[in-house]
């Protein structure tokens, strides 16, 4: 360009409109060149990837598109789909409720749904302490709950009551989010009552045990200190649970209000996965904290015991723990005791999760700078005060992403309970569906359905934990 000026007398008085960049440097071609065909290696990779995608689509797409939604049996599906074949989604349409709820009574579906919704409310103070985000989450959950209940054709009174309840909780979370801590504390009992039903007095009586524990603690702690207070309070509560509670529930058990009882063998599908996963993680948190502290303790015996327990549990596969629950626990408990397989599985899964949680929390503890411990000592705090006020709040906050990913792993692993005869969504329910003469021989559809739901849940949780990690990181820098 500059050469032309020397040859001619013409001098441009105004700027030329800028030329478009060369065709390879703009628009879609530039993007393609930079992102897909930069260099021969990249191009080769792109072509291979395209080929893979194409082959996958080619083999699966017709099957997906030719899916049959309305049929009453696999045979009918085959007839409708014709010779080229197609997915038989009718089985999902017919049996979806068993995949979600197992054999939970159909007219009581509002109970697990409400328990699930309340779980988010209970988690809100933990996950979004004092933020409007919590309220937004609760609002969304409330709307979804009411919508799903309405879609399930529940009777209007239930829907309206639940809508009012959720609206109240939303208001609370908007105005005074800290008050939601009470919901968190009460949640285990509420969820237990909602899911298993029975008289409301049973969970209330169990809750009373904690009242006893707190009372005894308050009485003793000023005189004998935290450890003795906790120990005696705990013993008193155990005494209450073992001997007194039975009398109270016996007396009040038949009084209203109560819900129709649901046996745990009616739990199945994702309901079962959530019950096992959430209970195990919740119960394993305190055990895990104690184990983590034990592992860092100066006391040789306690350290050895904690390390032994953690390494033992982490050294064996979950499936052996499940078989232990199903085959061996009966040997270790007093003769003739017998309780629910689900409860036994939950106990063993809890122990399993506790070892992993302990390691996560140990990581959190290790990440705290030494200065924090020293500062606590300098303030004259004793061990438990330091843990409660200084160390744990920080260590737990750092550990939340780790806890979430432990939960994801555990939630996925709940599928293994089918090997001890429980109705997990993946194999347990599918096996039952396939035992029906109408659906015998169905293969992919249930797996795809269950796999997609698992993916959505776990992906959601892992994204959430990544977001949390990001947020917590900036806090620390």
């Amino acid at each position, binding site marked *: 360009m500059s050469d032309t000026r020397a040859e001619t007398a013409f001098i441009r008085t105004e700027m030329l409109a800028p030329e478009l960049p060369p065709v390879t440097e703009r628009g879609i071609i530039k*993007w393609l060149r*930079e*992102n*897909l065909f*930069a260099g021969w290696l*990249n191009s080769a*990779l*792109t072509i291979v*990837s*395209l080929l*893979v995608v194409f082959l996958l689509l080619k083999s699966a797409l017709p099957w997906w598109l030719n899916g049959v939604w309305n049929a009453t049996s696999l045979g009918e599906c085959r007839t409708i789909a014709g010779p080229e074949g197609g997915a038989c989604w009718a089985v999902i349409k017919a049996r979806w409720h068993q995949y979600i709820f197992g054999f939970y009574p159909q007219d009581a579906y509002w109970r697990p749904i409400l328990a699930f919704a309340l779980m988010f409310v209970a988690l809100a103070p933990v996950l979004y302490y004092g933020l409007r985000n919590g309220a937004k989450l609760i609002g969304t959950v409330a709307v979804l709950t009411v919508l799903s209940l309405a879609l399930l054709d529940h009777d209007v009174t239930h829907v309206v009551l639940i809508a009012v309840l959720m609206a109240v909780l939303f208001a609370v979370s908007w105005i005074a989010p800290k008050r939601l801590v009470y919901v968190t504390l009460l949640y285990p009992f509420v969820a237990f009552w909602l899911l298993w039903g029975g008289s409301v007095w049973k969970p209330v009586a169990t809750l009373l045990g904690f009242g006893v524990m707190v009372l*005894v603690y308050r*009485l*003793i702690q000023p*005189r*004998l*200190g935290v*450890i*003795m207070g906790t120990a*005696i309070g705990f*013993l008193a509560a155990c005494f209450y649970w073992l001997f007194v509670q039975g009398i109270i529930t016996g007396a009040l058990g038949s009084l209203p209000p109560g819900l129709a009882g649901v046996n745990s063998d009616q739990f199945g599908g994702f309901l079962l996965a959530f019950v096992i996963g959430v209970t195990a993680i919740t119960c394993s948190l305190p055990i895990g904290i104690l184990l983590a502290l034990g592992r860092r303790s*100066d*006391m*040789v*015996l*306690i350290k050895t*015991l904690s390390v032994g327990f953690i*390494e033992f549990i*982490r*050294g*064996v*596969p*979950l*499936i*052996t723990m499940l*078989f232990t629950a199903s*085959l*061996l626990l*009966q*040997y*270790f408990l*007093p*003769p003739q005791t017998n309780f629910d397989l689900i409860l036994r599985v939950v106990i063993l899964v809890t122990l399993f999760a506790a070892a992993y949680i302990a390691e996560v929390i140990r990581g959190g503890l290790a990440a705290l700078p030494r200065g924090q411990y020293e500062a606590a000592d300098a303030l004259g705090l004793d061990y438990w005060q330091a843990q409660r006020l200084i160390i744990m709040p920080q260590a737990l906050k750092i550990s939340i992403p780790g806890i979430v990913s432990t939960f*994801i792993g555990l939630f*996925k*692993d709940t*599928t*293994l309970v089918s*090997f001890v005869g429980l109705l997990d969504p*993946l*194999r347990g329910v599918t096996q039952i569906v396939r035992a029906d003469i109408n659906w015998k021989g169905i*293969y*992919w559809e249930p*797996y795809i359905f269950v*796999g997609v739901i*698992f*993916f959505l849940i*776990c*992906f959601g949780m*892992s994204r959430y934990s990544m977001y949390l990690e990001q947020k917590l990181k900036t806090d620390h820098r």
Partner: protein
Amino acid sequence: MGRKQGNMTMAMASEAPKDGFRLSMLIYDTRFRSFTIQVIVLLLVLLGIGWLVDNTIANLAAKDKDINFGFLWNRAGYDIEQQLIPYTNDSTHGRAAIIGLLNTLVVAFWGCIFATVIGVFVGVLRLSKNWLVGRLMTVYVEAFRNVPLLLWIIVVFVVTSETAPQPKDFKVTAEMVQTGAEPAAQKILFNTIAITNRGWNIPGPLFERPLPTVHLGSVPLNLTFLAIIAAVVGSFVANRRVLRHARLVQEDTGIRPVTWWKSLLILIAPIVILLVALGFHLDIPAFPADENGVSKGFNFQGGILVQHSFSALLIALSLYTGAFIAEAVRAGVMAISRGQTEAAYALGLRPGRTMNLIILPQALRVIIPPLISQYLNLTKNTSLGIAVSYLDLRGTLGGITLNQTGRELECMLLMMLTYLIISLIISSLMNAFNSAVKLKER
């Protein structure tokens, strides 16, 4: 009771402090407190163990059972499809358990290797500038991380057994001999490997002049096998000596002698000579045929059959664990500061060599701790072979043996102990490796 004790200690505490030992010092004096706590915990633990043992004895007595590992020496009576050491249904339950253990270990071993390879590749490719590749790798990682492993094992197993041809598709019928038509499916790789929906028929080693098998007590020793191992190990050791010599020469003179042909010779010649001496040739799987070339029988004969229960478990485990390792690798690579890359570019290294020589070795230190736990997970997850009925330790000892003998307690204890030992060995090996490559800070 608690109240009374409280009052007692209160009374003691309110007395004027005296020298010497008081009971309350056990709780309040930090010198003694940890001792007290440990004694109490020890007592509680012993009580708990005693309670469990007592219950177990009572339960066993009630069921008229005992703890007896004698069943391990009884005839097993069932067949196992994949055996690394000889086994028939006349072998003992103990031998079946060992077969299962070996099957567990072989999946775990190859799984760890494949998962690492996949993980490193995918982890690096996820950071690739290629948009499509990056996205595809993300899809892969997320899909595998967020769906239960059990489902993946089933899916891989079903895909392999549904898409591969049946053995009978490889058969030559009389009609085909007449018309000169080819069978529906062909072996691959120069007609040596047949992939059927039952598994991979791969060539196996055969020796025309094998060395005898020596029995040391009851343990059979395959001398052929030992000789080959000795040859391989020997040539590696010799090669190391050559390389060390070369390094010494280089340090002395500054000129590195040309060693590649020596290395090649030392590595290859002994094993080749040994194999030729033993009369080694490949046993290629094939259908038995009559004089007209018409195939008969149900399956390929000869070679080694790697069943799909093994390969599907291996593939699924490798892909699943690979996704997790990929995340660890990505995190490790991203933890290396950008300056390292820029410095490498400034030195004129190409991107590939930058990754290999600069970034990955440094990232390794970040990657190894999560890698250890992934290896452990993979090893433990081999027990999910139950979904495809792969007869590993859980399938033999904790499955069929347990079921046929009804010895739950013994089988489960033995199985958990074995898994525990495997895990401890892996973690101690990897921890040793970790401390070897760890950045030595002074």
